[in-house]
C-alpha cells in the first residue's frame, strides 16, 4: 500500500502543471517554467514509483527496467532545471512590472539564462548517460547493481551524485529567490504563502539529499535503490503539500470571500421569504420564476435575492391602489396596545399598511368610496430609498421581520381581515337580493 503513495504525489504535480498552463500572469516565461517543472516532476514520480518499475520488470527485459529508471531520473533533472529557470523568469517579470525596463530589455538576459540553464541540463544529462553506460547496471530485485569493479561502482555513484548535485543547485537557487521574496513580503498573507512554498522546497532538498545514501551504497557495495522508496514518498508528499498550501494562499481570500458572500446572500434571501410569500400568494404575477416549487436553496442566492427585492417592490407598487386609509387609525389603536420600539416605528407603519392592503387585494376590492382620504399617497414607499442591493436587502429584511412578528401589525391584519369578511358578506347579501 505504501508503495502507491508516490502516485497521488505525482498526480498532484501533473494536475498542478495543467493549472499553471492556464495561468494568465503577466510573465509567460514564469508560467511556462512552473508548468514544465511540475509536469516533469510529476511524470518522474509516476515513472519511478516502485509498482511502475516492477511492472516493467515483469516484461522480462531487464534492460528496459533500467532504462525506465534512467528515464525517470532524466525527467527529474529536467524538472530541477525548469525550477532553476523560474528564477530569471521571475526577475525579468519584476523588471518589467516595476517599470525599470521594457519587456524587450528583460527578454535578453532571460534568453541568455535559459540558454545557460539548458546547456547545463544537457551537460548533466550527457554526463549521467555516460556514467550509467560505463557502470552498465542490472536490476537485483528493485536495486540497481553493478559488478564488483571499482570503476563500475564509482560510475554508478557518480551517476547518482551528479543528478543529486544538479538538483540541489537548482532547488537552492529557487529557494534563495523565494526567501528573498518572502522577506520583502513581510508577515502578511503573501509572505506566509511564500514561506510555505519555500518550506516545500526545503522538503524537496531533503528528499534530494536522501540520495547521499545511494551514492555511498553504490561506491561501497555497488548497488543502490532503483525506484523511489517510502521515505522519498513521504518527503515528496510533504513537499507537494507545502507548495500547494503556499500557492493556494492567493485563493484563500477569494474562496472565503465567496463562501461568506454566499452565506450572507442566502441569509438575506431567507429573511425576505415570509413577506415575499404573502405577497406572492395574493399577487402571483410578480414572480419571474413561477416554476420554482422545490424548497431548495437557490444556486445563485445573490441573483435570487436581487429578484426577490425587485418582486417585493413590484408588489408594493401594485398594492398602492389597495391602500386602506383606515389602516392608519387601526395602527394608531394597535400601537397604543403594543407600542413598537422607537427604531421600528417606520417599519411598523409600512408593514401595517402592507398587511391591510394585502387583505383588500386578496378580496379583489379597492378601498371603499366612503373611506376618508388616504393619509399619504405612497405610504408603502415612504421609507428611505436605498441604492445598493445589500442596503435594500437589509431594509426589506427588517420590514419582513416586523411584518411577521410585530403584534401591532398582526392586530391591523386581523382588523383588515374582519373588515374584508364583512364587506364580502355584504356583497353576497346584495347579490342574493
Amino acid at each position, binding site marked *: 500500500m505504501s508503495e502507491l503513495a508516490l502516485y497521488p504525489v505525482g498526480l498532484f504535480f501533473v494536475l498542478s502543471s495543467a493549472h499553471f498552463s492556464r495561468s494568465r500572469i503577466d510573465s509567460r516565461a514564469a508560467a511556462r517554467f512552473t508548468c514544465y517543472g511540475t509536469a516533469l516532476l510529476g511524470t518522474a514520480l509516476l515513472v519511478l514509483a516502485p509498482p511502475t518499475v516492477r511492472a516493467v520488470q515483469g516484461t522480462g527485459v531487464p534492460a528496459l527496467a533500467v532504462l525506465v529508471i534512467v528515464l525517470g531520473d532524466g525527467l527529474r533533472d529536467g524538472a530541477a532545471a525548469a525550477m532553476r529557470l523560474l528564477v530569471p523568469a521571475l526577475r525579468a517579470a519584476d523588471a518589467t512590472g516595476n517599470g525599470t525596463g521594457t519587456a524587450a530589455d528583460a527578454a535578453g538576459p532571460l534568453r541568455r539564462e535559459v540558454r545557460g540553464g539548458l546547456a547545463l541540463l544537457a551537460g548533466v544529462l550527457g554526463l549521467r548517460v555516460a556514467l550509467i553506460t560505463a557502470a552498465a547496471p542490472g536490476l537485483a530485485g528493485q536495486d540497481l547493481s553493478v559488478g564488483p569493479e571499482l570503476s563500475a561502482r564509482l560510475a554508478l555513484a557518480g551517476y547518482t551524485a551528479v543528478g543529486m548535485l544538479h538538483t540541489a543547485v537548482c532547488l537552492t537557487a529557487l529557494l534563495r529567490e523565494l526567501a528573498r*521574496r518572502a522577506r520583502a513580503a513581510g508577515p502578511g498573507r503573501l509572505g506566509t504563502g511564500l514561506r510555505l512554498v519555500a518550506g516545500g522546497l526545503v522538503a524537496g532538498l531533503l528528499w534530494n539529499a536522501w540520495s547521499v545514501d545511494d551514492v555511498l551504497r553504490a561506491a561501497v557495495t555497488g548497488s543502490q535503490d532503483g525506484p523511489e522508496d517510502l521515505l522519498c514518498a513521504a518527503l515528496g508528499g510533504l513537499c507537494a503539500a507545502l507548495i500547494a498550501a*503556499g500557492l493556494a494562499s492567493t485563493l484563500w481570500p477569494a474562496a472565503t470571500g465567496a463562501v461568506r458572500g454566499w452565506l450572507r446572500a442566502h441569509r438575506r434571501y431567507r429573511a425576505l421569504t415570509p413577506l415575499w410569500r404573502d405577497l406572492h400568494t395574493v399577487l402571483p404575477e410578480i414572480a419571474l420564476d413561477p416554476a420554482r416549487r422545490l424548497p431548495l436553496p437557490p444556486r445563485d442566492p*445573490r441573483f435570487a435575492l436581487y429578484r426577490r*427585492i425587485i418582486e417585493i417592490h*413590484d408588489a408594493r407598487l401594485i398594492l398602492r391602489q389597495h391602500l386602506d386609509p383606515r389602516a392608519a387609525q387601526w395602527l394608531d389603536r394597535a400601537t397604543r396596545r403594543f407600542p413598537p420600539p422607537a427604531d421600528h416605528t417606520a417599519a411598523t407603519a409600512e408593514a401595517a399598511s402592507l398587511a391591510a392592503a394585502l387583505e383588500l387585494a386578496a378580496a379583489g376590492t379597492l378601498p371603499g368610496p366612503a373611506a376618508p382620504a388616504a393619509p399619504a399617497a405612497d405610504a408603502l414607499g415612504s421609507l428611505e430609498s436605498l441604492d445598493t442591493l445589500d442596503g*435594500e436587502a437589509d431594509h426589506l429584511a427588517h420590514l419582513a421581520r416586523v411584518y411577521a412578528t410585530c403584534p401591532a401589525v398582526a392586530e391591523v391584519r386581523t382588523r383588515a381581515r374582519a373588515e374584508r369578511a364583512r364587506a364580502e358578506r355584504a356583497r353576497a347579501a346584495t347579490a342574493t337580493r
Partner: protein
Amino acid sequence: MWGELWGGRGYRSSLRRCRRMAERLELPRPFDPVVLLEQLAVRRGRPIELLPVPARPHAPCGLLVSTLEADYILYAADTGVLHQRHILVHEIAHLMLDHAGSAPLAPAAALLPNLSPALVQRVLGRTSYDEPQEREAELLASLILSRAERADAADQSGAGRAPAGGSLDALGVLLAARRHGGPNDDGPNDDAPQDSGPTDEGPTDAGPQGRRP
C-alpha cells in the same frame, strides 16, 4: 440557476441569448443606467428620452414608446432607487432585444398627451410576465443589474483588484511578492484586468430629460 427558470424547452434559446448579451455588454463602472442608455442611443443612432413619471394604478410602471424619430422611456419615479433603475434597464433591455410593440397605446397616451398616436410605432409596458417579450426583457435586466451590482460591490471592497490573471491564479503569489513587498499586503497584484471593460466615460448628466434613477 436557469434550469429551474421556466423549465420549458422553448425558452432555452432565449435564456442563452440573454446570458450572452448580459455577459458581453460593456458596463459603466460604477454602473449608471443613464450612461448605459446614452451608449445605446449612440450605437443605435436614435435619441432616447427618459421621462420619470409617478406610478399609476392599473398602469405599467415602465413604458417604452417608439416613434419615427426617437424612443421614450417612462419609468415610475416614486419608488426605490434600485427599483427605478431596474424598471429603466428593463426598458433598455427591450431596445437591446429589439422587441416589437405589443402593449396598448392608452397608458402611453395618458402619460404623453402631446404625442400623436399616428406617430407611435411601438409600445411596450412592464406589467406582468405573461408576455414572452416582457419575460425576456425582465430576465435580461435582472442579469445585467446583477452583474453590475457584483462589479460595483467588488470595486468598493477592493476585491476587484485581483491578483495577476484573476483571483484564482495561484502563480500570482510568486510575482506579487516582489512588487508589493510589505506587511499585510492583501492585494497581490494591482495590474490585473478588470472584470469587465473599463469605460473612460465618467458619470454624465442625466439623460436628455428627467432625474437619474
